[in-house]
């Protein structure tokens, strides 16, 4: 009499399962469709600019000549932002997760999260109205004392509206992203491993170097890549802060331009082939971001065996 009870099942439970798995599948497909759609749009719209004769493109020397200074400018701004923001973010995250008294830590966490909520145009306004002015004496000093380095070659911009200022503003913008992500990662370090290090006679800093940082490594890389994504794509702040121009090695002169700011500043008045050129620039930015993310994934998976996830 109990033989049939195994073949019976609760119908409602299965319906829930099916609905959920269908919804999850749909969401997964949707994100792919959207991504593919954007890529397709960019390629189709950019096509005229890619095949147009060189003299028709802005500058008159073809698309590649037009785009590569922008690519370099974008990377310079993003790299400045990350070089400044990453160590500070990791330091702040470690302070919050392992050094600060509990009350101070949660307060500080809120303040950092608040930084992420400020709109980028506000950062841009702050950068151009305050930071650029205040920082230009420092640029003069750099030009006078370290001018032999190509990146600090004078004469320094009098307004301070340079790629370095833009990079600093970007650093402030990506700081909260990297900080809050790495803080979460650091807090997840298993107590067991921290205690193992301490029991071997490690100081707090040695414990962090032995357990917290290696354990958090993939997370740190992901956080930095998210920050890089924002720095690469940030438009408003750079458009406001940077007095753009031709590619220059010096970070403290006006000049250089990023792809995102170039598109934002020129799009409203563009028409015809100019629109295609700008969209092609957008396509390039898309490819750069994709490439950066794939490299980051590669770095993370290469160390999977030692990641602590097994």
């Amino acid at each position, binding site marked *: 009499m109990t033989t049939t009870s195994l073949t019976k099942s609760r119908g409602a439970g299965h319906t829930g399962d099916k609905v959920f798995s269908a919804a999850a599948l749909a969401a997964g497909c949707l994100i792919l469709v959207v991504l593919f759609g954007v890529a397709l749009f960019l390629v189709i719209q950019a096509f005229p600019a890619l095949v147009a004769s060189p003299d028709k493109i802005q500058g008159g020397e073809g698309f590649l000549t037009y785009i590569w200074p922008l690519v370099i400018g974008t990377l310079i701004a993003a790299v400045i932002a990350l070089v400044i923001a990453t160590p500070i973010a990791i330091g702040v995250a470690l302070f919050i997760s392992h050094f600060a008294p*509990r009350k101070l830590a949660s307060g500080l966490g809120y303040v950092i999260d608040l930084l992420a909520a400020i709109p980028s145009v506000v950062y841009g306004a702050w950068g151009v109205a305050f930071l650029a002015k205040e920082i230009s004496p420092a640029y003069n000093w750099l030009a006078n004392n370290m001018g032999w380095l190509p990146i600090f070659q004078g004469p320094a911009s009098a307004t301070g509206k340079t790629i370095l200022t833009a990079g600093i503003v970007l650093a402030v913008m990506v700081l909260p992203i990297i900080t809050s992500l790495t803080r979460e990662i650091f807090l997840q370090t*298993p107590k*067991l*491993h*921290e*205690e*193992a*290090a*301490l*029991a*071997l*006679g*490690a*100081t707090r800093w*040695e414990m962090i170097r*032995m*357990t917290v940082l*290696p*354990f958090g*490594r993939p997370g740190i890389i992901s956080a930095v890549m998210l920050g890089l994504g924002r720095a690469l794509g940030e438009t408003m702040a750079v458009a406001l802060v940077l007095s753009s121009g031709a590619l220059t090695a010096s970070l403290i002169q006006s000049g250089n331009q990023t792809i995102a700011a170039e598109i934002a500043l020129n799009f409203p008045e563009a028409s015809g082939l100019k629109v295609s050129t700008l969209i092609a620039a957008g396509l390039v930015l898309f490819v750069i971001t994709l490439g950066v993310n794939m490299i980051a994934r590669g770095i993370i998976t290469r160390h999977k*065996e*030692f*990641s*602590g*996830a*097994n």
Partner: protein
Amino acid sequence: MSKRIDVKDLNVYYSKFLAVEDVNINIEAKSVTAFIGPSGCGKSTFLRTLNRMHEVIPGARVEGEVLLDGDNLYGPGVDPVTVRSQIGMVFQRPNPFPTMSIRDNVLAGVKLNNTKISKGEADVLVERSLQGANLWNEVKDRLGKPGSGLSGGQQQRLCIARAIAVEPQVILMDEPCSALDPISTLAIEDLINELKDQYTVVIVTHNMQQAARVSDKTAFFNIAGTGKPGKLIEFGDTPTIFSNPTEKATEDYVSGRFG
């Protein structure tokens, strides 16, 4: 290379809560001492005060003295980092560093205390420590592989190898076999028997047969009830504690008539 521990009038607090009250105990060098008692009686807490690992827990503090061959661990100016490099610890769950290879796990503590060690010296030390933990033959061909790929029992022996690599005076073990199967447990118990030739070993265990098998002396801890502090009820030679204890509570506990 091993020292004795004498504890005088030790109280352990979590903030204002008195967790362990008035412990006096003398632990001989080159012997195995087992702490037994019901859950929550403070034996693990007390064990942690022997190398100041309780300080990791916010609010935990002690009153009293713990003397390592006469030197007070809680004396002014004593650095807990130094204390822990002399008194090693093995934990309840095996915790090799997952981001390090087997070799680096063994060397982890040594590199802290003495950053300059030649590759040859390191090789010798790795082999000696792994031999000492009865693990060498099982891992000698894969020293570069992550320690987390080993079985639970092997991981625990790796942790013991890591602890003895720094040549401590005392090794504390907090229920080192509670997450292991009987065969791995036997391997660890054999190892404890060998370790006492060189080290002072203190082990917390829930397994009374284990205490009877491995220890020379046994300390029985108990609590009067929830919210009351844990106390050391009786301390003596292991055969005496298990066959002819002085206290009624000890007899009830070791004969399984507890509660």
